[in-house]
């Protein structure tokens, strides 16, 4: 499609996309959770690099590590019958560092995710407290949805001491952590109030004009905000929209559900699949229209790019995977982001020195140095890397009562480096890493998009 053409009319309206409720996907591959991953073991030559990079194995002597859990377990397994998955798969936090560490391309996290899914659906007691707790944690979106209707009450109730004590005792959710606050207005409410796609188109046009670009330039992205920036940190979502509009992009915020990251980590593949079907369906139609999918959370972009095609066989899933980008990454590719940042400066609230932690999932996408390098020449702010360790929370892992101590032990290295860093504000792309950073250091944590907004948007 050339820039001069207007997009063809389709029945699909991104402003009011399909509701997801009566959505009936075609099951192309009914047993898609039953992938035989034994052939993946062919690539393993047993060097143990994955084991030495696994943050959980480092602190948990009972955890056998990724080499056992992945290639060894799969090779020992038989595809038939009653070969059980070892329950240690539930101790893996799904940080995916092993994936990145393996020199030989063993599909480790795919193996873990698939085995965990099998364990949960076939071996785990569905009435056990652990199952129920994991299901609640994995379905954060559902809780957040209700909480966001009554944010003040929810914020109070969720962190109300006696209630937390009961949650820990009956559900095994640690009472050490504070639940994240729910925003008074969700991102989507803000977006709708602001005029949605129509307004965004106006803003983008104005920006293109300002920048001397053709007014009808084909610059458009579909924002996958995920649950957290919708319910808890809408300021990240707003920053994304404003930064993209500043560069002349029209933004749409299609119907979407949870990316599935917490569900993979808890082996709830059926839940994840249901959500993925909605996400893939709305994103793939947009991709067909020339949109790219942009996520501000590195675990969301990871899910859409890697885990979806590895775990599910849904129509359009590969197309979505190929066209998904992390928010800053996309601008680095398509704009002279470095140049613009160099020419800019920040003052006020975000003129800070940031202690930056690269989330494990950003590492797998090759994005772990991006924030540090991008902001190096920005006047008024400093970004200092706090090292390549894992924050230790890994989404839901650190919320589990029995994992809390280990989670903090893993995070120890990062906390120490944060302490030694110049600044007293943290920065990261991942919402749960942010929780852990805040919990361990007491710093306020910001997202790189917020700094970009402060630097580039008037």
């Amino acid at each position, binding site marked *: 499609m050339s820039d001069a053409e207007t997009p063809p009319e389709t029945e699909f309206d991104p402003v009011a996309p399909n509701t997801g409720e009566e959505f009936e996907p075609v099951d192309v591959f009914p047993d898609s959770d039953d992938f*035989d991953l*034994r*052939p993946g*073991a*062919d*690539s*393993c*030559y*047993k*060097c143990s690099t994955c084991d030495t990079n696994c943050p959980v194995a480092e602190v948990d*002597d009972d955890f*056998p590590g990724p*080499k*056992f859990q992945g290639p*060894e*377990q799969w*090779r*020992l*397994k*038989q*595809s*038939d019958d*009653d*070969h*059980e*998955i*070892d*329950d*240690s798969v539930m101790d893996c936090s799904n940080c995916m560092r092993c994936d990145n560490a393996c020199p*030989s391309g063993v599909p480790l996290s795919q193996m873990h995710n698939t085995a965990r899914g099998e364990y949960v659906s076939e071996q785990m007691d569905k009435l056990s407290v652990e199952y129920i707790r994991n299901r609640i944690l994995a379905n954060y979106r559902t809780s957040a949805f209700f909480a966001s209707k009554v944010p003040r009450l929810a914020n109070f109730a969720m962190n109300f001491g006696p209630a937390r004590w009961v949650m820990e005792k009956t559900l095994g959710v640690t009472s050490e952590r504070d639940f994240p606050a729910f925003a008074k207005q969700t991102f989507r409410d803000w977006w709708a109030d602001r005029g949605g796609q129509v307004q965004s188109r106006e803003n983008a046009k104005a920006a293109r004009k300002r920048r001397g670009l053709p007014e009808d330039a084909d610059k458009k992205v579909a924002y996958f905000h995920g649950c957290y920036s919708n319910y808890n940190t809408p300021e990240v979502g707003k920053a994304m929209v404003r930064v993209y509009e500043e560069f002349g992009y029209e933004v749409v915020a299609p119907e979407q559900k949870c990316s599935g990251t917490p569900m993979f980590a808890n082996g709830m593949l059926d839940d994840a699949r249901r959500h993925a079907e909605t996400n893939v369906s709305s994103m793939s139609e947009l991709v067909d229209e020339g949109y790219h999918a942009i996520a501000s959370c590195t675990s969301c972009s990871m899910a859409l790019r890697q885990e979806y095609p590895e775990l599910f066989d849904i129509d359009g899933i590969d197309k979505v995977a190929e066209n998904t980008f992390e928010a800053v990454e996309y601008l680095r590719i398509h704009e002279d982001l470095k140049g613009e940042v160099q020419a800019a400066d920040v003052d006020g609230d975000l003129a800070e020195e940031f202690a930056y932690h690269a989330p494990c999932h950003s590492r797998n996408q090759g994005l772990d140095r991006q924030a540090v390098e991008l902001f190096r020449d920005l006047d008024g702010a400093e970004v200092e890397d706090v090292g390549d360790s894992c924050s230790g929370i890994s989404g839901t892992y650190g919320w589990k009562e029995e994992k809390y101590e280990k989670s903090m032990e893993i995070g120890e290295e990062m906390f120490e480096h944060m302490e030694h860093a110049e600044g007293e504000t943290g920065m990261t792309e991942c919402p749960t890493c942010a929780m852990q950073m805040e919990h361990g250091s007491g710093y306020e944590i910001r997202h790189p998009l917020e700094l970009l907004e402060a630097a580039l948007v008037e």
Partner: protein
Amino acid sequence: MGPTPHIAVIGGGSTGAGIARDLAMRGLDVTLVEQGNLTHGTTGRMHGLLHSGGRYAVSDQASATECIEENRVLRDIASHCVEMTGGLFVKRPEDSEEYFQKKLNGCEECGIPAEVVSGEEARAMEPHLAKDIDKAISVPDGAIDPFRLVVANAASAQEHGARIETHSKVTDLIVESGEVVGIEVEHDSGPGKRVHGTEGGTEEIRADYVVNATGAWAGRIGDMAGLDIEVRPSKGVMTIMNIRQVDTVINRCRPKGDADIVVPHETTAILGTTDEEVEDPEDYPEEQWEVDMMIDTLSELIPMLDEARTIRSFWGVRPLYEPPDVGSDDPTDITRDFFLLDHDERDDLPGMTSIVGGKFTTYRMMGEQIADHVCGKFGIDADCRTADEPLPGSEDFSVLRDYMDEFGLRSPIGRRSVERLGSRADDVLKTDGPNPTVCECEGVTRAEIQDAIEGSGSDLNAVRIRTRASMGNCQGGFCSHRMASELHSEYDEPVVREAWDELLQERWKGQRHALWGEQLSQAALNYALHATTQNRDQDPANGDPVDFSAFDSGRGQTGSSVDSADVAADGGTDGY
């Protein structure tokens, strides 16, 4: 009845072990001698197919009928050695329809349960089959572990009073007054279990009767008494894949041909084979093209084999025999049936019978016939019980257990161990001490290794075939030294070193024909690891004994007491 006759059985393959067990169970005195390990010969170098008989249903119906009978018996008495995978005879579009029908009819005629399945159904069973296959015949083929089976037969013979001598070579037959009266044996390391470095020696074993069950070597034993036994050894190659691409035995449904079968075996799949006559059963060429042919031809049935990792290849020689008057040119035409050669009737030399030909699947039946024959010589009327009495390990057992609760093992490891040990699992795996995994690829723990050492002495290759330790994808790269360490402290350092060297030699040998792609990376890593951490590239300690007292005893040993149970095997708890 006079004193119990003493029978010497030569050959510790499936045939010899089966004969020894049968005779011992009938109350005879038995000595089995084997020049190497148990299964040193063809038995340790075969395909591991528990024949349904389907392969012979057209060409050799007598063998086919025996196979299906014994197939049923072994499922019962050797359940811990057998995996009933089922088998398929797969027809590709270019394969003859006429032969397909013949195969189907042949199976029916031989009493082999056979059923036609569509190409689609076959692929539903085995998703990696080629998309364009026409159809298949399903038969009750299975996979069988030859090592476990022979070791169990020998153990049972021993329980019934037999003497088993491995690493003991028969160097001569003792013939007195025109009758074979015993054998002369050269022990590698003294009688009993093999211990490296132990003084060997020769022994004269007098026997009332000698059974020659040396398979492809039968002619050599015959030579010792001037007998002419025309065994025609025929070699075949087998290539082991790292994983199981199929969980069913896959046969190509066409007349005879090379590279027409894949057998899932434990964690691996084994491709085979060829059939080519050789002069010498111990010295014949092993060539790369044979391996290439396995992969290329079988990729027509299972395309992913083309890209898959092979971990090693090995060759075996069939002990084919045909009566001198038949004279087949092509070894594939020689019958797979077995022959009992009574040298009294045949050559006027009483005191010995040879058994030649046959198959692994029918080993028990062969044993029964020989035992009947031998008992007949002594007027003993004892029933054969080998078809009813389970082998040690195959008594009632279930593999569905709570491995963590019962044995403290993670489920895939516990499962594999229990599958290997069968009913012996409780005896072997319930130990008080720590039970770390020694071989990670195959999930073999210390308890199982120790049990094997108890049974076979310092011979690590014998430990290997009993446990599968070092038979996985690293081919001993990460576990050979751990296995060797398990020999300590029962055995001294020089014994351990020699056993370790021998294991490594054996492991490298089979990888020569798998050195490309992933297995080449593995070999390079193994080499680097062994060179840098064990001085294996040039070991200055070889030869001279090491002065271990010159080393200190490690951190924390002096003065402070170290509670060794607190130290994780990976050094995890001490922070280093």
